[in-house]
Every structure is written in C-alpha cells, then in structure tokens.
C-alpha cells in the first residue's frame, strides 16, 4: 500500500468507528427517535464542506496574488470534495426533514443557502471544465470561488431576516446530553479527517493530471525571462 491508500484506509476505518458510535453508543432521542441519528453525519459533513470551500477561497486568493499552482490545485480539490460533502448534507437533511417536518424541503435560510452553495460550486467545476485549461481556468475559477464563499453567508443572513425553521445551533447552546455530544464530536473529527484525506488524494490526482509539463513550462519561462535580462 502506498501512503495514499494507507490514509484512505485509516479514514474509512475511522468512519466505521463513528458509525458504531452513532448506532450503538449514542442514546436514542426521546422525541425524534432513530431519525435523530442522522444529525451526527449531517452536521459533520456540513462543517467539512465549509472547510473545503474555505480551502477553495484561500487557494483562489493565493493563486490570484502569486500564481501558485499548488494553491490552485488545492482549490480544485477542495471544490470537488466540498461539493460531495454538500450533497451528503442536503440528502441527509432531506431524509431527516420528511419524518420530522413532514416535507422534504422548506425554503428556510439554511436549506436555501446550502442549495445555493451547491449550485455555486457546481458552477465552479463547470467553469474549470469549460474555460481554457491553465491560467484562464484557474483565474476565472478563483473569482467564482471568492464570490461563492461571500455569497453564501449573504444569502443565509438575507433569508434569515424573513423566514427560518431549521433547528438552531444546539451544540453551542449546551443542549446535548454528554453521550450525544461525545458521539457528535467524534463523528465530526472523523469526517474532517476523511475530508482532509479526500482533498489530499484529489490534490495528487490534479498534480498527475497537470502532468510534469506544467512545472517545466514555468521553469522554462522563468529561465527565459532571466536570460532576457541584460548581463551585468
């Protein structure tokens, strides 16, 4: 096994442990019953997705400042992995909402802004596909990533002014019994590890997809610009 396979195996193992904690350690919710167990992965993957999109934002900003290919590859990896975790969040949330709210969807601040988040980063990946590969795709995508990251809190707060029914933040409010809190924190840690491993693997794929030519081309152009300088 190479180190990527080892990391992937470790992340999967951790997720299996988290599943064990969710189903066997955490107590059943008195009001919501078994459905409440969705909460652990739902919230964890939402946090993982935000983390991934923060990588996209920071990677894009660094790319625009310095043209660093490493930053751009991290941005690409973060967008894809973040989109996966957003999908998980949305689907698990809808599965929870059906028995609890009686409907899969409500136009609430969280739901709306998460859906917008999904659409924006799906657009981000489309820009990467449609723009001319290389500098143009990286620059355009970086701009989309920056606007996308700003837009989501804006959508969230603008919708909050008028309509919301999503449960509030219960973790910071100290509303969870200790077993549930421990399960949640463990699941969140495992999910974050999984997200980090996925970003690393995707980063490696992006590096291989760029091919050795990209760095070489950069070095060649750097050498040429040096050669053009007057000899002292």
């Amino acid at each position, binding site marked *: 096994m190479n180190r990527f396979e080892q990391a992937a195996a470790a992340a999967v193992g951790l997720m299996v442990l988290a599943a064990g904690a969710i189903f066997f350690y955490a107590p059943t919710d008195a009001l919501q019953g078994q459905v409440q167990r969705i909460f652990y992965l739902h919230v964890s993957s939402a946090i993982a997705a935000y983390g991934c999109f923060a990588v996209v934002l920071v990677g894009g900003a660094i790319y625009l400042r310095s043209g660093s290919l490493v930053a751009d590859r991290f941005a690409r990896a973060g967008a894809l992995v973040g989109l996966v975790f957003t999908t998980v969040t949305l689907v698990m949330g809808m599965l929870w909402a059906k028995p609890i709210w009686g409907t899969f969807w409500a136009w609430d601040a969280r739901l709306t802004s998460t859906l917008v988040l999904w659409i924006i980063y799906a*657009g981000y990946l489309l*820009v990467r596909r*449609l723009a001319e590969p290389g500098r*143009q795709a990286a620059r355009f995508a*970086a701009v989309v990533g920056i*606007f*996308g990251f700003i837009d989501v809190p*804006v959508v969230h707060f*603008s919708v909050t002014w008028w309509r919301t029914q999503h449960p509030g933040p219960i973790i910071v409010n100290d509303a969870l019994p200790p077993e549930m809190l421990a399960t949640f924190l463990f699941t969140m840690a495992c999910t974050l590890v999984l997200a980090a491993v996925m970003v690393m693997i995707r980063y490696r794929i992006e590096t291989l997809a760029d091919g050795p030519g990209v760095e070489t081309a950069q070095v060649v152009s750097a050498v040429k610009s040096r050669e053009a300088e007057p000899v002292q």
Partner: protein
Amino acid sequence: MNNTIAIALAVARKDLTSEWRTRELVPALAQFVVLALVIANFGFQIDAHNAPSIAPGVLWLALVFAGLVAFGRAFAAEREQSSLEAMLMTPASPVAIFAGKAMAATLLLVMCEAVLLPALTLFFGTPLTAQLVLAVLLATIGMAAVGCLFAAMVARVRARELLLPLLTLPLFIPFIVAGGQAVQVAMGNGGNSDQAVGLLVDFDILFVVLTSLTARFVLDE
C-alpha cells in the same frame, strides 16, 4: 482617479452611442419583458385578487433574465469584433474599462425597466410607487456589477450562453430576497420595507467593492 473616471465615462458613452445608432438591445429587451408578462398571464390565471401576490415574482423573473441578456450582450459585441483586446492594449486600466461597460449595461437595463414597470402596472393593476422603483434600481446596481463581471468572464469561454446564468443567478439571490421583500411591501402585501432597502444598499456596496477588486483578474488575460 480622475483619469479612471474619464475612461469609464468614455467607454460608457461609446457603448451607449453604439446602442443608440443600432437600436438593437433595448427594443429587444423591452419586447422580451412584455412577452414574459404575457406568458405569466397564461401560466398563472391572473385576476384582480391574486395579481398583487404574483406580480412581484413575475417582475423579478423578467428582470433577472432580461439582465442576463443585457450583460451578456455588453461583452458579446466586443468579443465578436475582438475590440476588447484592442481596448485592453491601451494604457487605460482594465478596471476603468470594465466600469464603463458595466455603467452602460446598467443604463440599458434601466431603460428596459422603464418599460417593464409601467407594463406590469398596466397589465396586472399593481401600484407603481417610488418605493418600488427605488427597490428595483438598487437591486439593478448590484446585479449589474456581478452580472457584467461574469459576462466578461464567460465571453472568453466555450458554451458562454450556458455558463452565464449558471454562475450569475445564484449570486443574484441576495438582491432578489431583499428586493423581493421591498417590492412585496410596495405592492401592498404588508410588512416593512426599510430593512429590505437598507440590506439592498449593503449588498450593493459589498458586491461593487468585490467586483472592482476582482475585475482586473477577469479582464487582464
């Protein structure tokens, strides 16, 4: 700074002059928004009772799609003639050129709104108040900033007609949420619009600043 403003105004004047000479975009957009109202009429079974609750939605749908066409055209015309490259080769700053084009596109969209809002009043019987006009104009500013930025971007990308709405519409949502609320109030659906108008101003500032910071990277290829 003065120079930047002068260049922006010159670019805006160039775009408006070319629109005045051809008279293509504004009549087409005007016809487009009227058609949107006709389609809404058949889609919704509108009568005097439900018109105030449907009209705001129709207004924003028509406006958003007319905006996409207007912003897309602003840069498509430059691409067809490769004149954007020529402008960027001059010493003028890309941000000034972008600001000029965005101003012209905003004005053209405002002209289209000058058709849309009275037509809405005429066909739906909803009031045309200063409050309504203010909300629409405030939303137009921010939407034009973002819309033109992404129009400039997709002008150089394959499948640009496909990508522009996909990238721009999610970013329009804050304006539609706040503007939608203000228009609801203006059309007599209850509530208070002060907060919504305040939010619109905040969003305008945020998006115009963000656009001016990133425009350089989109144009300066």
